[in-house]
């Protein structure tokens, strides 16, 4: 992990952000620094994204998925996962409308029998015109794939992909990290998913969650940055992200008042502070260290599906020494944390993102939002994403 960035240029930028949050109308130029982010309604191109869990592809059955607006078909061939474009080159229909596979490494279009090889996407037969002149000369797009930590990653882009390690949070690929998780479709733009997760005061919505009622975790109403340089901007080499050290650089708010009414966080006799650091990484993945319990790290991907939906990945990781420990951890996630944290806590987030989707479409949020001081982390994330993404995904 690179050290904290403290050169004077950054400080100047952060002072600008501070001025913007105090008085947006006089500092509108600050918004220029996240213009690319505003265009990325379908995400950033030329990055690695998780597509499915390994266990989703246990047999050789082809599986259609959509990422960043692109339809593709995944299939395990001789143990290796391959990905091809989900469109026949002939009339552009999706194969997934009716999947037909006559051999273990091809797919045949249900419409006119155009048959493609999974490894290179080449047209290998046309069932309706044997000896068709197009065979071997035409093909469809294939996608680079990597399988690791029980997840299948696909590179959405053009040209040679960078290392997967550039596009996941530090530590995620560590060999001694055991992982387990779930994924589900959420009805909001991916950026609203990412921002809700990284937002240090959104935790207000979790105060009465099942997680808070069944564990000894202590959660304040919000976390307010103590100084304007409390964010660490990680610009690489390696993954690019914004790190918020919640434990050291923030003041937790446990009670507030409205007139004479006090609103307080849930206090517990032996309560345990959780989530000592939260960070967000390109192309859109969150890491919460020490959550849902001190020895666990939560990773969340918000992978664009369409402009209005994203695949929400919730993966818990724990450092282990033996294979048995890994199995025990996975079993603990499935039997306990999935209910108490991944649903009993994060369902609040899913609900908030869907409310944000209305706010940022019908409510014109990208133009009319009025961010406040604790949102500095969101501004830093927008700026980082705008500066270091590898391309804006467009619908083709």
């Amino acid at each position, binding site marked *: 992990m690179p050290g904290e960035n403290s050169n004077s240029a950054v400080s100047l930028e952060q002072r600008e952000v501070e001025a913007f949050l105090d008085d947006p109308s006089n500092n509108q130029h600050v918004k220029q620094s996240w213009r690319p982010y505003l265009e990325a309604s379908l995400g950033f191109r030329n990055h690695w994204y998780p597509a499915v869990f390994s266990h989703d592809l246990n047999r050789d059955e082809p599986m259609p998925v959509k990422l960043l607006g692109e339809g593709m078909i995944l299939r395990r061939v001789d143990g290796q996962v391959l990905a091809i474009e989900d469109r026949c080159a002939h009339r552009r229909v999706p194969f997934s409308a009716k999947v037909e596979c006559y051999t273990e490494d091809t797919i045949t279009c249900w419409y006119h029998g155009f048959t493609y090889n999974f490894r290179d996407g080449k047209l290998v037969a046309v069932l309706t015109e044997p000896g068709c002149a197009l065979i071997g000369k035409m093909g469809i797009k294939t996608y680079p794939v990597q399988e690791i930590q029980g997840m299948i990653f696909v590179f959405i882009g053009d040209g040679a992909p960078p290392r997967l390690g550039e596009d996941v949070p530090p530590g995620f690929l560590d060999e001694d990290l055991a992982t387990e998780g779930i994924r589900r479709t959420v009805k909001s733009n991916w950026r609203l998913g990412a921002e809700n997760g990284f937002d240090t005061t959104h935790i207000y919505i979790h105060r009465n969650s099942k997680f808070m009622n069944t564990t000894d975790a202590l959660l304040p109403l*919000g976390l307010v940055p103590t100084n304007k340089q409390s964010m660490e901007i990680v610009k690489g080499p390696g993954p690019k992200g914004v790190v918020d050290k919640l434990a050291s650089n923030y003041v937790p708010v446990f009670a507030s008042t409205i*007139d004479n009414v006090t609103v307080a966080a849930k206090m517990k006799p032996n309560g345990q502070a959780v989530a000592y650091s939260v960070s967000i990484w390109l192309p859109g993945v969150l890491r919460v260290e020490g959550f849902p319990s001190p020895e666990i790290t939560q990773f969340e991907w918000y992978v664009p599906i369409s402009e209005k939906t994203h695949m929400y990945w919730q993966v818990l990781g724990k450092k282990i020494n033996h294979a048995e420990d890994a199995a025990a951890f996975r079993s603990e996630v499935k039997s306990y944390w999935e209910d108490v944290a991944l649903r009993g806590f994060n369902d609040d987030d899913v609900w908030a993102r869907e409310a944000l989707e209305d706010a940022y479409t019908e409510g014109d*949020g990208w133009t009319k939002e*009025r961010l*406040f*001081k604790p949102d500095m982390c969101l501004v830093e994330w927008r700026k980082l994403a705008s500066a270091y993404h590898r391309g804006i995904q467009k619908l083709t």
Partner: protein
Amino acid sequence: MQPESADPEAQAGQREVKAFLDEPAKHQRVKEGWRPYLEAKLGFRNHWYPAVFAYELNGDEPKAVKLLGESIILRRVDGQVYALEDRCAHRRVRLSAKIECYTSDTITCWYHGFTYNFADGKLVQVLTEPGCALVGKMGIKTYPIQEAQGMVFVFIGDIEPPPLLDDIPPGFLDSDLAVTGIRRDIKGNWRLASENGFDTTHIYIHRDSKVVKATDTILPLGFIPQDRHSMIVVDGPGPKGVVDKLAANYIPVFESEVGAVKVSATMKPSGKVVAPEVSSWLPCVLKLQAFPTPELFVFEWYVPIEESNHWYFQVLGKKVGTTEEATAFRSEAHSFWADVMWRGFNDQDIAAREALEDAYTDGEGWAKERLYRPDTCIIEWRKLASKYNRGIQKSGR
């Protein structure tokens, strides 16, 4: 009420309308007279609209409602009704998505604890950042409110609101008028609802209605204007509307023929002809005198919600002498007229509006309609609304 308009300009205008109805292709320029009306998909801005009935806000529980595309949250504070924009200024989420009120005169956003006062919309606290610099400096929009006749009216606009009286039909606020009603979310643009109600020949669809069957009311198949000046255009001061004197200036049609087949209105031995007068008022309200029976009044608002639906306020009124009479009337309305009139009669209007919605979207009715002579009233309403509205409501507010 203004006297009948007889000035030369108005007469010239009505002659033009006649020529247009006889031969639209040659008189297309007449349509220029209602161009603003065609733009008003979301209604007219800077007018008063009913939002809810007063009894819907009996406790202090906030209630969300959408009018003219604007999301609003209403709450009764110390007896008085207040209205706030239903969006937090911070991240624009709806406060009503999950209502949190810690005190009787504030609402707190469920997301980050931004707390607003109902009276002035000011930000009074941020629970997640006590002492936030924005407190007292930022706020959300409030709406002027008036409660009258058991209804809560909201002013949607930017100007200093005119008196409520300018935006409701004459007589509605009379102290001896008892009123009661219901509201429903109905499919169809508000203008189609308004035109269906004011249309003097649409009553053809009601010939077998429950009102005709369950009362001694007689309804003709339609009403045809006797002369081209039978409409009174009331252009203020006060409310602006078009009044049709059905009893005085129209010929009722009780029977027609298709070849050798006769089509007749339902006739009754001691039947009463009703509805001597119907009028349509800005911004979107209809008044029927002496309907469904001679001693009753009908008031109907068609308040835009979005472009393709409206709040249908169905209100009955009756002149009463005492509070007991008022109570008896309200009870009669909800036990009898709710079934016979609001459902048994007006459900036919609702079906017609839904059919019109398709006709004026997919069917391009605004461009392709072919109006006929009895539709003069609709044209006069479109012209009046185009001329005297206080602004066109635009989407994206």
